[in-house]
């Protein structure tokens, strides 16, 4: 058998994966092992598959994803901490023919922006909200988030979250599912190939709801933060499965008819 050369391998017919075209060429700023990169890719793939690249406006506020606009090759705004859904409301109200989405972390969406999140969902703004929940403030260096689970250690709960002293985690997804303005509310994860596929389906569905003008579509992605959790990527996935998922159950919480 002849020796296999590199040029024999790099062929179009052997290709099993390529960069999502809507990614810019900029290297992601996320830590290796973090779920943000996959979540970004899924959003971009959905936009591409729906052929709405020139018809979509994204909003990413302060948090690890503050630089999303450097990676997503679509028109984007960077919002102040917590204010993404207010900005998205403004955009969608004056530009109802555009697809508008926010991409927010837990500190942003569930702490400083809780008011904006709830009122946007309650008004039923016709937008998609992608909510990355990793139970920690990644960008600022691992402080407690509103979604930090009981006994979880962070730099501002170094002995574990004591709910008596620090209050309880906030299940935003369950909360917004109660509101009349939401049409589709689901919680997914991206740490296994099967879950990635399910998440992508949910994101696609969320955009389809927007297309059908049904109200606010809300997709939470429970993700890992190996740096903030001080674990290796593999350990962090195990920790997520053992600790986060029992608290934040995956599944569809609300699904109005999509006619």
């Amino acid at each position: 058998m002849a020796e296999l050369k590199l040029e024999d391998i790099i062929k179009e017919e052997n290709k099993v994966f390529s960069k999502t075209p809507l990614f810019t060429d900029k290297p992601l700023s996320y830590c290796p092992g973090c779920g943000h990169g996959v979540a970004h890719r899924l959003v971009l793939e959905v936009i591409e598959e729906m052929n709405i690249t020139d018809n979509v406006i994204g909003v990413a506020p302060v948090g690890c994803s503050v630089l999303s606009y450097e990676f997503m090759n679509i028109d984007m705004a960077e919002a102040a901490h917590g204010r993404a859904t207010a900005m998205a409301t403004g955009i969608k109200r004056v530009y109802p023919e555009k697809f508008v989405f926010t991409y927010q972390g837990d500190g942003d969406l569930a702490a400083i922006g809780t008011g904006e999140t709830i009122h946007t969902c309650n008004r039923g703004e016709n937008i998609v909200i992608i909510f990355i929940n990793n139970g920690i403030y990644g960008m600022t260096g691992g402080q407690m988030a509103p979604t930090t689970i009981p006994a979880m250690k962070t730099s501002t709960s170094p002995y574990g979250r004591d709910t008596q002293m620090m209050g309880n985690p906030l299940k935003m997804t369950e909360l917004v599912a109660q509101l009349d303005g939401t049409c589709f509310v689901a919680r997914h994860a991206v740490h296994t190939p099967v879950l990635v596929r399910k998440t992508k389906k949910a994101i696609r569905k969320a955009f389809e709801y927007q297309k059908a003008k049904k109200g606010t579509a809300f997709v939470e992605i429970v993700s890992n933060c190996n740096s903030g959790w001080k674990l290796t990527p593999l350990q962090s996935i195990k920790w997520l499965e053992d600790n986060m998922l029992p608290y934040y159950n995956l599944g569809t919480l609300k699904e109005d008819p999509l006619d």
Partner: protein
Amino acid sequence: MGEIKLMKGNEAIAEAFIRAGVDGYFGYPITPQSEIIEYLMSEEPHKRTGMVVLQAESEVAAINMVYGAACTGKKTVTTSSSPGVSLMQEGLSYIAGSEVPCVVVNVVRGGPGLGTIQPSQADYFQSTKGGGHGDYHLIVLAPSSVQEMVDFVPWAFDLAYKYRNPVMIQSDGVIGQMMEKVELFEQMPRLTNQEIKDKYDDWALTGRTPGREHNVITSLDLVPERQEKFNHKLEAKYKIIEQTEVKYEKIMCDDADYIFVAYGSSSRICQKSIAIAREQGLKVGLFRPITLYPFPYKEIMEMVPQLKGVLTVEMSLGQMVEDVRLATEFKVPVEHYGRVGGMIPTPEEIVDALKTKIIGG
């Protein structure tokens, strides 16, 4: 000749928004300016022009809705009063820092804190010196009549788009609440989406037009060399604004030995004070800054050689007086007279203050 009506300042400016072809209004009720959103809701401008009106859950949300809508190149406005405008400062800093055009109206009431619902001019520092964090300026226009509440709306939008900078119309509870005869300009058309793309596609979020790079609205740059360069770009813009956009009015200044410097409703009261003073043989004029930023430093300085003294009249404990002292370089006596807490000075009080603080001082 446009349509003539008797209107409250707040209602007139709301009508002016519709007629100026505004695309979106986002606001939160607060006294003494709630008539603006009430008027808009009752007029149903979505039926008249397609203009969107939304009552937000807070002033914080309202300014960020403005930020979002304005990012798309569409004409966007919000209104509030002092405590609400304080809540908007974060958003205004972001809007200035990402060079997005919009208009904000402050119908000023007394503070600090919850203060009073009565008129005041004590937000001068906040409006003209930045207000939020970082090096930036709003362009600040000060109407002194219901007519100017109307006329300043298209002017404010022209400036906002010319410089891609937030513009504040700084009114006060007197102008907002009083009724005057007003001539309304003809309905201007809202721009179509295509017209907006044609005009602003080099920066606005219109959806990534095939063939162009993606547009990004952000106030963030983590590379200090680039951020410094951007700060200097803003500085250069403000310099041009200071050189070209100053507006003011001089009343009976030609022979004046003394002038009042006053803006907004205080300048209206001062007009009566001039008449009283002149009856008493005092040659008094009024210098009215119409743009509070850019401030007419040079134009006030030019008057100094003829002057024996200057009295600034503001409904505050003395804010604009600092700029007037800068303008005059302390070459003539400059004193401040003001009532605060929602109290409004009478014309006679102002003349008395001129006599005691300047002439007899």
